[in-house]
């Protein structure tokens, strides 16, 4: 059975005009496809173009050339408001610095994408997801009352709120200690096991090793694309 291609990039390039200086090519000739249910790590050092690729995968930015297809639909010519809709419905983005609103508690933070989707009973759904990621005891706590790992979980819960087809995480363990980081990676594993398609962008080999497929990025293009045969990833 062919599983659905959630996200596909066809010959994507991104060039930045730098004013008076020569233009910078951040990405060139990127072609890849993310299948439903997959667990992918995009590995690259800083300067490899992984941040740019991340923005394009997350539909926060559009390529200079090439096509981006989200579940078969080409988004490369969409308006900003149309892209916002795609981000709301199809993609759950977990930012490296979490970007939680400090004056909102956990439930209010997780509610946000639900409200923008016009969803009924947002509070109930928010509480459900927070429980799913293990924060049932901290529903009404504010970010400053939580540890780094707990904030990360709130960010993940928010990303999952609208039941997106793709969960996209930027350096998910970057701001955490190794033990908490391990817990978070385990959470991603669990989520993937229950059907979520997960893409992690990282510079850390050990983090990338938990995925089943590792795409290595260097100097703006794909250096390698390897798949592990074992369900536990490359560990």
């Amino acid at each position, binding site marked *: 059975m062919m599983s659905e291609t959630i996200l596909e990039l066809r010959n994507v390039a991104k060039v930045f005009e730098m004013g008076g200086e020569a233009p910078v090519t951040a990405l060139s000739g990127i072609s890849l496809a993310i299948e439903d249910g997959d667990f992918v790590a995009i590995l690259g050092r800083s300067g490899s173009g992984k941040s740019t690729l991340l*923005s394009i995968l*997350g539909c*926060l*930015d559009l390529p200079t050339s090439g096509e981006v297809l989200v579940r078969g639909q080409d988004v490369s010519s969409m308006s*900003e*408001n149309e892209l*916002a*809709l795609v*981000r*709301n*419905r199809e993609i759950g*983005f977990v*930012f490296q610095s979490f*970007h939680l*609103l400090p*004056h*909102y508690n956990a439930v*209010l933070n997780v509610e*946000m*994408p639900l*409200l*923008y*989707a*016009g969803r009924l009973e947002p509070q109930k759904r928010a509480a459900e997801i927070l429980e799913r990621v293990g924060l049932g005891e901290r529903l009404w706590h504010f970010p400053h009352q939580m540890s780094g790992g707990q904030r990360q979980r709130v960010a993940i819960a*928010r990303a999952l709120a*609208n039941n997106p087809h793709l969960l996209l995480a930027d350096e998910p363990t970057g701001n955490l200690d190794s033990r908490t980081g391990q817990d978070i990676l385990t959470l991603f594993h669990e989520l993937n096991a229950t059907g979520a398609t997960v893409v992690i962008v990282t510079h850390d080999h050990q983090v990338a090793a938990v995925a089943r497929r590792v795409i290595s990025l260097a100097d703006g293009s794909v250096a390698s694309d390897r798949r592990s045969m074992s369900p536990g990833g490359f560990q």
Partner: protein
Amino acid sequence: MRLNESMRIARANLLANKTRSFLSVMGLVIGIAAATVVAAIANGVRLSVLESLSSMGTQVLYLFPNFETARGGERVQQLTHEGLVRLAELPFVEAAFPQMSYSGAARGALNELRLDAMGIYPRYLEVYRIPVVEGRGFNDRDLEVKARICLLEVQTAQKLYGAAGALGKMLRFGRTSYEVVGLVKRSSVPLGFGNGVETSLYIPLPTLFRQEASMIGSMGSAEIWIKKDYKGDPKEDILVAAAGNPQRKALFMIQDPKALIEEMQKTSGRLQRTMLMLAGISLLVGGIGIMNVMLISVAERTREIGLRKAIGASSRDILLQFLVEVLLLSGLGGAGGVGAGVLAVWLTPQLSSGDVPMAIVPSAIFVALAFSVVVGGIFGLYPAFSASRLSPLEALRHE
């Protein structure tokens, strides 16, 4: 995104930053408060003018010697008894009451002062809005019996009798003693010279006539009541009757209290418009203040805006969010301003001597609230619009 969700977000955001919200809306609050007070003053003046106009059912005119015709020490021509008779006989005159002013020494319990006194009829107090603050005014019976009574101005009474009070005491004036039956304050209506602005002592005119018999033969001024249905202009005929001779009519002049009050109304109308304009300017300043604070708020919340867009907010969602915030803020500010204005109007009579009439205008309150919301909307539009135009990627990277 639905409106009540926007409202919830707006309320949460405003509460999160109470101090800033409060300060940003101060200009608006002051502007609205000022406008409320101005409207109350204008309305108060309007009501008191209407009151005095309506209390003058009959047209009343005041005849005075024309002081300007007396030059170089020439004596001013007073109204004579014959002149009074001529006036009373005019076909359109209902009645003519003379008034007399007279300077003399008055002796009270504590000391003696030189006072300006006036012989009047009872209606004089009402027409010239001289309030009786203690005791009573004059009535028709006093006139009938030529009662030897008087009214003293409060501060003069204080000087003459001190803490013991003047009411009920005897005052010596001229060659007679008069019982003080009431204390009055100075008229709040500035109707110009001749109405006894400096008068401290009032005595019923028939009494003064009888007691100071030497004064018969010349009278200061006269109050003339015109018959109700007379539609013509009586002034010319009155002047001629008073002088006895058409060539000498310039010896007298006429003061029309109604016209004066209407003039005062016009002046206060001009004043009111000026004050409203100033209130409007401060509203404008308040609006600019709101806009500036909103701009700062948007700049500070750039990352938040980026995040909201990243998880699915459209430009319209962001615009609506900030617009609702600013409308809520300015609406609350307007309500606060109205509250402050009403409080100021309520407190002022307690603090001042109550000379300034004020009355709250209910419709002005709604106008004020509507204005503040509109001002907030207009001045908040630019910041809200610039917030909605942010690119999520750049906004997220913002410091």
